[in-house]
Each structure stands twice: as structure tokens, then as C-alpha cells.
């Protein structure tokens, strides 16, 4: 019987070794972010990590973004060697993130990537395409050192797939086979990271029986997911799980 449910977050991340490449579902706040898995990874202590995520974590902008412990804690804890991100810096020059300080000090290597190129590099890594051409970045700093090729008279850059050892992702519901559904904008990078990594570990709100998820609605097929941990304690972010985003009547707004 296929059963990918793991009891504890600690167990789920126990085998992550020093030097691993880790993708983290992350976008502008705690939505779709694997909060408890990151806490567990900090506690577990693996070092010399390469992190692939939208931000480099720890971006605190009082009054704009919710202040919570994201993957910035891995930088604080000196577990990171390199970060591949598109939005690595705080918007405020007076609230530098741990990552920014470490990048400035030369302690952490930063690979800065346009967001869409990052998404496609992750997808390509997932689907066996080692490299592709994209128009984005020609004539900017992003083009430095990259092969340029013209298609239909337009310049394009050659971009390479990224592959991860682990993806730490966040979803809404799972069954024991690992079929995942998300909720609203929780998806962001999570489904493509799940497809990419050698080992995908998902943190979910609910574990349901096989067959409880409509097959038309599955976003991440279970074959991409290796371990599932259910969240036991609500970390207290603004959410209304009792309410779906499905608005049937336009007058209801």
C-alpha cells in the first residue's frame, strides 16, 4: 500500500544532507509557504545549502508584509551557501535581510534571475528539458555571459534547467498517494517545484482518504510527492478555511 504520510516534520527532513539543493515554495508572505518544514530544517541543521526560492527570505517591511519566520531563518542560522532568487532584497534599505547582509559580506552567493525565467528553469528541470531560449533579459545584466541567439529576428538568451534534491512545498489537501490540491494563490511555485525535486516533501492542512479528491481537480499528481506531513497547529496567519474562494453570485461581492 502506498502511504506517504509522515508523522513529524523532523522525520520528514531528517535525511537532508549538507550541500543539498533545496527548492522552497514562497511568494510575498506566508501563503503557500512550508512554514513548519522550514522550522524543522533549521532545527535539523544541514549546512552549505543551495536555496531556490522567490525571495531570499527575511524581508521585513513593517505595515506592508506580514512579519513571520520564513526561510530567512536558514540564513540567520548560517545554513546557506548559495541562493537562486528573483526578489532577494528588502524593499527598505534600512531593514536589510540576513541574506542581503551575507551576500554583501561575500558569505552567500546570489544568482539573480528574472521571475519568469526562474519558473521556466524549474519547470524544464522537472520535464527533462535541459535548456531553452527566452527573450527575457537580452540587453540587460541578466544576459552577461549567456549565449544569444536570434529567432524570427528577435534576440533570445539560452537558459538552463535547475534541478533540486529536495522541494519543501505547501499544499491544502493531500491523500496518502500524494495527490495535492491547493487553495487560491497558494500554488505559486509549489506545483512546479513538486515536479522538479528528487524528493518532494509537502506540508498540508488536511489529509483525506483516497478518492476524496475529485480527479479533475488534482493539481500535483501523487507521483511527484514523496512525503506528506499534516499541520497540527495553526500558525495564526489570516485565513478562512471554512470559506472557499468560489464566488457563485456576482452580487455577493
Amino acid at each position, binding site marked *: 500500500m502506498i502511504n506517504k504520510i509522515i508523522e513529524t516534520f523532523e522525520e520528514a527532513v531528517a535525511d537532508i544532507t549538507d550541500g543539498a539543493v533545496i527548492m522552497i515554495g514562497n511568494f510575498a508572505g506566508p*501563503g503557500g509557504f512550508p512554514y513548519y518544514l522550514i522550522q524543522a530544517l533549521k532545527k535539523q541543521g544541514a549546512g552549505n545549502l543551495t536555496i531556490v526560492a522567490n525571495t531570499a527570505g527575511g524581508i521585513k517591511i513593517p505595515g506592508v508584509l506580514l512579519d513571520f519566520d520564513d526561510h530567512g531563518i536558514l540564513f540567520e542560522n548560517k545554513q546557506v551557501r548559495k541562493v537562486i532568487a528573483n526578489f532577494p532584497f528588502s524593499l527598505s534599505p534600512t531593514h536589510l535581510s540576513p541574506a542581503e547582509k551575507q551576500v554583501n559580506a561575500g558569505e552567500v552567493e546570489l544568482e539573480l534571475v528574472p521571475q*519568469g525565467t526562474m519558473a521556466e528553469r524549474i519547470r524544464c528541470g522537472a520535464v527533462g528539458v535541459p535548456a531553452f531560449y527566452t527573450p527575457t*533579459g537580452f540587453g540587460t545584466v541578466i544576459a552577461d555571459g549567456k549565449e544569444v541567439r536570434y529567432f524570427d529576428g528577435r534576440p533570445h538568451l539560452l537558459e538552463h534547467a535547475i534541478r533540486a534534491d529536495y522541494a519543501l512545498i505547501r499544499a491544502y489537501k493531500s491523500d496518502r498517494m500524494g495527490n495535492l490540491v491547493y487553495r487560491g494563490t*497558494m500554488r*505559486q*511555485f509549489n506545483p512546479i517545484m513538486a515536479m522538479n525535486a528528487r524528493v518532494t516533501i509537502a506540508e498540508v492542512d488536511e489529509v483525506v482518504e483516497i478518492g476524496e479528491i475529485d480527479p479533475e481537480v488534482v493539481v500535483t499528481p501523487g507521483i511527484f510527492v514523496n512525503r506528506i506531513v499534516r499541520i497540527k497547529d495553526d500558525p495564526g496567519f*489570516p485565513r478562512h478555511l471554512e470559506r472557499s*474562494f468560489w464566488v457563485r453570485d456576482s452580487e455577493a461581492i
Partner: protein
Amino acid sequence: MKERLPREVIAMRIARELFDGAVVNLGIGIPTMVCNFIPEGITVIYHTENGALGFGPVVTAEEFEERADIDLINAGGQFVTPLPGMCFFHHADSFGMIRGGHIDITILGVIQVSEEGDLANWMTPGRGVGNIGGGMDLAFNVRRVIAATEHITKGGKPKIVKQCSVPLTAPRCVDLIVTDVAVIEVGKEGLVLREFAPGWTVEEIQSITEPKLIVADDLKEIEL
């Protein structure tokens, strides 16, 4: 110097560029305000990088307790509201829409914009670092790029320049520049001054604009 238009009025003017059924991606700052001024009877479909189309207005401070949900946010991290007909998708599909030319209009903020429509809006001058985010993909690939900006910097320097002195977001991408004193089209021959803010003369606008402006035959006051 004459009075400059408030940021809301820049947004109001840009809203007139939208059309029924337009698929629109709004950058952070003035662009976000545009959605408050959509003309009656027009349905605009908003796209956000983090994977939603057709969502509704930002949750207001009064609604926060009742409606804010971390699972429904826009690219600026703001809580937004659901609408009938919306849908969700992942980041590769989201940027597939952008790169594939399926977004009609994007409205982006500006650090500098050049005579040829080069846009620089990501590298914070002085700090030496910056976030590229999704702006580069938008600037390169969306059919129509509208730059929303104050005409000059807080220090009084032109933001519309002959050549950008800070790292580019994308070369030759901007189609229209809407500022607090003018509406300028990026044409093949150069920048065409199409509209001016109430009370401003061509000479006054030219004096705070680095490249030479071409004055449109049908130059007129900004209509809202």
C-alpha cells in the same frame, strides 16, 4: 513651477487606456491604483504573477478581519478578493501567459525611461542592489507597456532621459509614458508629447525632460 498632478490622477489617466476584456498586469505603486478608476461598463481581467486571473479589489482596512486571507494575494503581497469567473494556476503557467504575449497591457513604475523606450525600474540607485522580480518578464513580453511615473525625481532630476544611467529592466519596451505633467508616446522618431497637465506649456515640460520632445499635431490637455 506649476502644480503637478497627484498620483491618483496619473492612475486615472492610465485607466482610460484600458478596454473591455483587456488582460492587465499592474506593477507596484501608482500602477496598483489604476484599478480604482476603470470606466463603467468595462470589464478588465487582472493578472497576477503568483497565479490568478480575474480577481477583485484589494481588501480594505475595514474588511481586514473578515476577508484577508493569505491564500488570496496579489504580486505585491496585498490581500485581494475573489470574483466570479476567476481562476488559479502555477508560476510556470503564469509566466507562460506573460512570455507568450497573452497579457494585453502592463503598467510599470519607473526609475528612468529613455528616448527609445528603454525602461529601468529595478536597481535602486545608490544601494547597488535590486529585485528583478517579475518586472523584467513583463517589460520584455507584454504587448503594451505603460510607464507610470512622476516626471522628475525627488531631487528634481529628469526621469525621462536620453540614455538610462542605471541598469535596464528591458530595452525599447515602453509604449506610453504617463507622468504628473504629461502623456508621452514612444514613437519611431522619438518621444511624442500628446497631452499636458492643466497649466503646463510645452516649454515647461521640455525643460524637465532630457530628450527633445516631438509635439503632437493634436496636442491637448489631459482628459480624464
